């Protein structure tokens, strides 16, 4: 389809209105919290949460390396525990911001501080978490590597601190918190074979183990949790890894693996534009023939979460890489960069091609609460479903897409490395003998 027809056909985001309503009704969050409090009182026996189940964990990063580690449990809604796990299913089910916040306010984080590498005195000589399967840390690690929610009992030191911590550009928002005294398993967790394999191999570098799990069909959400629990890598290197860091580490590692897979593939044949819109975020993905190059440009509208002053200008951020990747950490766009890159590489690997790729992310003021970087990953992944628009050249495509953006083509060219110029290769200039 021609790009101009494609742009015309894009449906206005019908969810936008509903979300705007939800925003006005954000007192709904208060209701969720009251509901939680009620369920919590029912579930508590003395100071112990009985009949609880935990589908996932949270590892904080405050006061590193003595960090808070937590078991997340949907109090009073144990049968639906699976639905509380952040992953691609939330996108498939069309979760809005409010749905995410509702899930997260219903999830109690029972946490305790632990050292990232020496949670028990016995292991002080060899500071590594790899054989810690007892105590709170042990239970938490069992939950992280299990493939379904694990039944347990959690002893609490105090009543939960009700509230909702906003998400960040990377992490999903967090709900009520309580200090845990201890936790005990009430069943033998089910651990998938490939995870057992990475767990038992004491001489396997973390990167290799992560890509192994990915190739065996584990999504980055599962791998993230396993990495967080210090359950892969060379044994003496195993540490608890804060959730935020492990999300980016897994996106980056799997992305590098996929980039290696397409390195010698042919370029795509035509310039393609793919679009998607989700939760007040609009994505344009421009793919062009040539060797791998990637850039994410984010445009944050005034009044959106990272650019709260409605009087301010659009806030632009960008980061890019060439054929051989980056040599430095991404300063702008952070976790979103690696999440979007992963999603694009998955698509290219599935068609066995390489390409030059510019991802444009427009954050509107409908995005009133950050829900975590999964939103970027899933939006870009799913952008490749359906049709795309074709353009003659990359710069034609970008200038046409720019008419739909809150910034003009010229400003975009100033901020974007790819919009300014695509890297050519020397063989394009070699004269045939």
């Amino acid at each position, binding site marked *: 389809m021609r790009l101009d027809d494609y742009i015309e056909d894009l449906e206005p985001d019908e969810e936008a209105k509903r979300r705007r309503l939800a925003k006005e009704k954000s007192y709904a969050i208060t209701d969720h919290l009251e509901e939680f409090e009620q369920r919590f009182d029912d579930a508590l026996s003395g100071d112990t949460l009985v009949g609880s189940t935990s589908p996932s964990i949270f590892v904080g990063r405050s006061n590193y390396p003595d960090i808070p580690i937590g078991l997340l449990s949907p109090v009073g809604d144990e049968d639906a525990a699976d639905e509380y796990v952040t992953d691609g299913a939330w996108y498939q089910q069309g979760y809005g911001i409010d749905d995410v916040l509702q899930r997260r306010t219903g999830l109690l984080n029972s946490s305790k501080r632990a050292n990232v590498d020496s949670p028990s005195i016995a292991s002080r000589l060899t500071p590594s978490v790899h054989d810690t399967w007892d105590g709170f840390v042990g239970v938490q690690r069992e939950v992280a590597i299990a493939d379904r929610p694990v039944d347990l009992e959690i002893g609490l030191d105090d009543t939960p601190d009700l509230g909702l911590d906003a998400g960040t550009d990377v992490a999903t928002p967090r709900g009520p918190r309580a200090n845990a005294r201890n936790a005990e398993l009430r069943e033998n967790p089910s651990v998938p074979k490939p995870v057992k394999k990475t767990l038992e191999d004491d001489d396997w570098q973390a990167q290799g183990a992560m890509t192994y799990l990915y190739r065996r069909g584990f999504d980055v959400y599962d791998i993230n949790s396993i990495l967080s629990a210090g359950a892969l890598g060379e044994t003496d290197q195993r540490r608890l890894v804060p959730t935020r860091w492990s999300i980016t580490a897994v996106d980056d590692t799997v992305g590098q693996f996929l980039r290696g897979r397409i390195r010698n593939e042919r370029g795509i044949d035509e310039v393609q534009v793919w679009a998607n819109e989700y939760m007040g975020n609009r994505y344009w993905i421009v793919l062009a023939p040539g060797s791998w190059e990637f850039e994410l440009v984010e445009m944050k509208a005034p009044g959106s979460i990272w650019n709260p002053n409605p009087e301010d200008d659009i806030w632009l951020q960008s980061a890019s890489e060439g054929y*051989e990747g980056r040599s430095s950490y991404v300063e702008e766009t952070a976790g979103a960069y690696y999440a979007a890159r992963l999603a694009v590489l998955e698509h290219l690997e599935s068609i066995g091609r390489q390409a030059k790729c510019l991802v444009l992310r427009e954050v509107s003021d409908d995005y009133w609460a950050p829900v975590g970087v999964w939103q970027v990953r899933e939006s870009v992944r799913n952008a490749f479903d359906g049709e795309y628009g074709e353009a003659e050249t990359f710069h034609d495509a970008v200038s046409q897409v720019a008419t739909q953006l809150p910034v003009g083509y010229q400003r975009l060219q100033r901020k974007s490395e790819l919009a300014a*110029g695509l890297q050519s290769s020397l*063989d394009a200039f070699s004269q045939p003998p």
Partner: protein
Amino acid sequence: MFKAIVSAETLTSALDSVSVLVDECKIHLEEDGLEIRAVDPANVGMVDLSLDAAAFESYEADGGLIGVDLSRLEDIAGMADSGQLIQLELDEETRKLHIQIDGLEYTLALIDPDSIRQEPDIPDLDLPAEVVLEGSDVNRSVTAADMVSDHIALGVDDAAEYFYVDAEGDTDDVHLELTQEDLIDLQVGPAHSLFSLDYLKDMNKAIPADAEVTLALGEEFPVKIYFGFAEGQGQVTYMLAPRIQSD
């Protein structure tokens, strides 16, 4: 057969100008000197280097080919003070390079040349404009551009007869004009091309401040950067593919 003695400074300059693009390279040990040609994996930047036999204190070779890990060889060369001499000798039997620096002996395992990326053919480019300037002016341009942007435009205004450098960033701009008087030489022709600063910064590192540098330019065409080192007995030509603004 290969046996040579060279000053640490000369050897280091030669290695540095190649290692900005590649980690490993093939070195041709010709009768009249060393030759290295390499291109980075993305096929964006290329280097063509020759170091004449006259640049060495002594030099004997008969046309062999070796493959080296550049950072290893640079590390060893870095053990010498700049005035010190480095003695190199190839052991044909073991395929190892014996390196001696004032009593320090180092045996470097070589890499099979066949396992190193193929050497590039040098594109035959018709570049209409030529600018000759001092290495320090190249450095000034690249450093200033890097403050505002990740890319740099190099061009020649053929009507007003000057060479210019442009960098446009998110908010700030850098512009530099050098006229005939500021330059060593200028051959006017239509030229304007955009280049990645990542590459240009690396190439700039290898250009001595007092070297006479020749830039050959065209419109959306690669730039050819030529300069000498080791008192003119070493020559480096870089070629860098542009970032394309039009397609």
